[in-house]
């Protein structure tokens, strides 16, 4: 067993310690929110080429039926999360990518499903077959990045290390934590499938030290698995790595730094170094796709914040509007002043409750006015807080000054392109300078130059 207090924990340079605020929901068992009468399903819910609709208004659709797809490889199809009739296809707000075309489906409430191909031993399938299953199920990175998973699994170079991301470093969010407790074996099966596809021998499962129950659950399941199968069936041992709870530990590069002590070269990707990082939620989705034949039509979302009567972790079908989901979790105790999709550090503030949930939604935070703090920006006093916390060695204050005073030619040497937009600098800034916006501007300027 671990002695969490005394063991040495991996970490990265810089970063900030945040108050967790996970206590609202960390003990709440996931519950499924029933599908509302009407589903508004954005056609594209991934990063990459947009999908084309495969249905037209008036069509009847079944649960799990593919209704949007793109011919281009960097894409992931979307499937209907309910059975019913397509009412229309129209542009609709999307919490992450602004307005995108969406399919409006009238839910007939029968959940009549397409035939799902259950598989007993998917690990016996070929590598390419498994990748096809993952692609067809529309699996994307569920940590929030929504990058199509099959692309990451089909890289030309040799992959030798698989890192499973269970860090969940953003405050408030607990969906991954709950999944690790409730779907421990399913996640493990997903991990083994990934290992099978990538043919890797080093598998790390990274969890922050504030998620003890998840660490214990995963640890126990892994030990039982080893006892049962030994290594003969290709069951490589999964090594749990306990990491210091520090933001942004869940970033791919920060995980790699903390676990392998390696830094991803500028402009390169982890896959260039033989490393693939996948989120635990994605592993669960892979399990569902391969074992149950179930496409990605729903996910675990943390609904939290001081405004909710009953904050919790919910299985939400994609296309469920926030206002419908809220009704199910008891409605508001207090009127929200800010609604954030994602975590409070990198999440996106929303204009309204008429927003559908999509694959990239890890959580929705409803903050009351009391929970919001308003700061006025003052001039930078060069206190260097931002320099100390930046996980990728930037000097945010200098980038900000160069942008503010339009000294664009100085930007080259400041490498704003390396910024992962984690927001740690803006969080720590004594003068509350919106550093991330300045750096984004610098990035735009750099991109234009090229």
């Amino acid at each position: 067993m671990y002695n969490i207090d005394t063991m040495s924990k991996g970490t990265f340079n810089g970063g900030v310690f945040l108050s967790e605020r996970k206590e609202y929901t960390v003990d709440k068992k996931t519950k499924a929110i029933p599908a509302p009468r009407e589903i508004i399903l954005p056609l594209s819910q991934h990063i990459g080429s947009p999908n084309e609709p495969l249905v037209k208004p008036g069509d009847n659709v079944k649960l799990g039926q593919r209704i949007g797809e793109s011919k281009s490889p960097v894409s992931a199809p979307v499937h209907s999360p309910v059975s019913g009739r397509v009412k229309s296809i129209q542009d609709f707000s999307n919490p992450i990518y602004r307005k995108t075309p969406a399919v409006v489906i009238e839910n007939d409430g029968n959940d009549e499903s397409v035939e799902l191909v259950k598989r007993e031993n998917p690990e016996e399938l070929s590598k390419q077959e498994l990748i096809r299953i993952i692609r067809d199920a529309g699996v994307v990175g569920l940590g929030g990045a929504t990058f199509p998973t099959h692309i990451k699994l089909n890289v030309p170079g040799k992959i030798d290390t698989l890192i499973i991301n269970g860090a969940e470093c953003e405050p408030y969010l607990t969906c991954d934590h709950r999944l690790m407790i409730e779907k421990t074996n399913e996640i493990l099966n997903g991990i083994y499938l990934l290992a099978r596809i990538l043919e890797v021998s080093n598998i790390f499962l990274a969890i922050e030290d504030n998620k003890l129950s998840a660490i214990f659950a995963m640890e126990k399941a892994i030990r039982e698995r080893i006892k049962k199968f030994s290594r003969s069936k290709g069951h490589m041992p999964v090594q749990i790595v306990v990491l210091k709870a520090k933001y942004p530990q869940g970033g791919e590069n920060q995980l790699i730094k903390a676990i392998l002590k390696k830094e991803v070269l500028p402009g390169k990707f982890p896959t260039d170094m033989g490393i693939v990082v996948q989120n635990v939620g994605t592993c669960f989705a892979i399990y569902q796709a391969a074992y149950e034949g179930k496409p990605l039509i729903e996910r675990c979302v943390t609904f939290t914040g001081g405004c909710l009567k009953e904050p919790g972790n919910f299985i939400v079908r994609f296309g469920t509007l926030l206002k419908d989901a809220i009704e199910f979790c008891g409605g508001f105790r207090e009127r929200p002043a800010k609604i954030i999709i994602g975590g409070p550090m990198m999440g996106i503030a929303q204009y309204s409750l008429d927003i559908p949930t999509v694959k990239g939604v890890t959580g929705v935070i409803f903050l009351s006015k009391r929970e919001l703090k308003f700061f006025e920006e003052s001039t930078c006093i060069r206190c260097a807080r931002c320099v100390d916390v930046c996980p990728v060695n930037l000097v945010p204050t200098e980038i900000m000054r160069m942008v503010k005073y339009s000294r664009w030619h100085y930007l080259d040497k400041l490498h704003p392109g390396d910024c992962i937009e984690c927001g740690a600098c803006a969080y720590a800034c004594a003068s509350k300078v919106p550093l991330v916006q300045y750096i984004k501007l610098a990035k735009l300027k750099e991109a234009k130059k090229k």
Partner: protein
Amino acid sequence: MKEENLYISPGPHIFSKESTPGLMKDVIIALVPAIFASIYFFKVKAFILLLVSIVSCVVFEAAIQFLMKRKIAISDCSAIVTGILFAMVMPPSLPIWVCILGCFVAIGLAKQLFGGLGFNIFNPALLARAFLAAAFPTFMTRWNHPLSLDAVTGATPLGLVKFSHNLDINYRDLFIGNVSGSLGETSALALVIGGLYLLIKKAIDWRIPLGYIGTVFIISFLTNLISPDIYAGGLFHILAGGLLIGAIFMATDPVTSPVTKTGRWVFGIGCGAVTMVIRLWSGLPEGVMYAILLMNALMPLLNRMTRPRRYGT
């Protein structure tokens, strides 16, 4: 729900509690022991100087910001810090009008002319002191004996060592502050307490005081080893003069010191080296002020030359 009631802003949506006024208030709190020590040793003279200096700095700050149509930002407390620090580096017998003039130089020239808080290159209190030292050398070298205020002596401990080679040092008096000098230069104990507070609150970076004091110690220790009749030892150079107040409160001023970690090391060590060169081999007994101002001038260059290694390279 009505949509105009929702706040929209880009992330992050949460912020640390730290703020500029908060940092300034920490510095003020850290200066409290030194303020008490100066009032204890120099009585009402110290009190009046401090009061005049703080009030003039705040008034000049507000007035200049008003005249230059800037936002009046005296609530950031930075003028109060400048006021206290300025008084701390003045001799107790300084005439009031010279003090007010010095505050004008600190706030008007050293700070607001450069663009206000965050844009100045030189530490305002030190630049003002340098100005007074050049313009009114007599006022600036009239030292009082502590406790018995009337006696005006010509020499601080540094002066005695340097010009009369009087190496008969009472370390206890030096540490407690029972020696002649500027208001805040005297009590090492009070300054160290304040410094520890700032370090615990993480209001200053430890690299600068450590680099500064460490360098001074090493140089003075070595020179003392070579010719003990001429040069005082390491401890003396740390306790005497403006070194502690300079290393703890002046060189650590965030605005005028580098932002990179390497830059801060170089900055601290540079301050120490220049201070010792002046103290040992120039015509002046004390070099803290010029050392910090010189390193202030190098700050933009240090920032540029000590950028952190690019991630992944």
